[in-house]
């Protein structure tokens, strides 16, 4: 793709740091993604099952989560290492089990809503020239369960991450929260 596209600086760009919430699903539940000419996702085809294959909402402590996409150039190739990190305050049975379930998935798709209300679809690579996509086998990475030490300064918490390697930055999801199939 030998095209250079101009970038104009917005007068007041939406650039608030952090992420608000994410939704995750096993790759096998997603049959097809449809992309438009702007390389954003306009439709998702799910494999229906009982219980329903849907995305699961994952909430976390406010202003503790981020979605980082670190790009490296390796000779003629580009790689983007995607990392989602979030903190779950308190150590509880419910959260512990939910994290164990998340860790049991070796291929995850994640829709991430950032604090500027952009939706990023992580865990896939999209080749716009071929109009083809594939899963990146995003899965959980480093994490911890920590009581911490000082009740006057710390809290007990879980830290969890999702990691994967992609062809480029995550495509945008155009359907908003209403279009995310959650049960």
């Amino acid at each position, binding site marked *: 793709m030998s095209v250079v596209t101009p970038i104009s600086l917005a007068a007041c760009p939406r650039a608030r740091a952090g992420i608000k919430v994410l939704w995750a699903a096993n790759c096998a539940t997603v049959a097809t993604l*449809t992309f438009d000419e702007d390389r954003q996702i*306009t*439709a*998702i*085809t799910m*494999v*229906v*099952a009982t219980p329903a294959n849907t995305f699961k909402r994952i909430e976390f402590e406010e202003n503790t989560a981020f979605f980082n996409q670190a790009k490296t150039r390796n000779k003629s190739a580009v790689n983007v290492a995607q990392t989602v990190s979030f903190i779950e305050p308190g150590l509880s049975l419910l959260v512990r089990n939910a994290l164990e379930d998340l860790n049991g998935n070796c291929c995850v798709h994640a829709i991430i809503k950032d604090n500027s209300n952009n939706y990023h679809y992580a865990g896939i690579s999209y080749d716009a020239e071929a109009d083809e996509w594939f899963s990146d086998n995003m899965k959980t990475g480093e994490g911890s369960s920590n009581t911490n030490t000082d009740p006057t300064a710390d809290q007990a918490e879980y830290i969890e991450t999702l990691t994967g390697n992609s062809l480029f930055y995550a495509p945008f999801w155009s359907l908003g929260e209403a279009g995310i*199939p959650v049960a």
Partner: protein
Amino acid sequence: MADLQTTTAREEPAPKGFKLLNTTEGQVTVLRIGKKTGFLNHGQKPVAFPDEKNIVQPATQELLRAIYDTDASYAQLIEAPAGYKAPWASK
């Protein structure tokens, strides 16, 4: 997904001949129909999705046309009858 709605088709009958390109039973697509979010059942049997409260019926010609008209990218999902011109085709 509280505000997901299935949009009703336009009043006038759609021309016949809209075809789903993927007819796999047990698959549902979430997409936009006009300005709303809706569902497209790829099979011939009603399916509950994303939960038991929402039964997605097999697609009608009117629904296929409404989806097709919404966005050019949906031509990857639906084939229009020969000579049909979607609103987005003139943009």
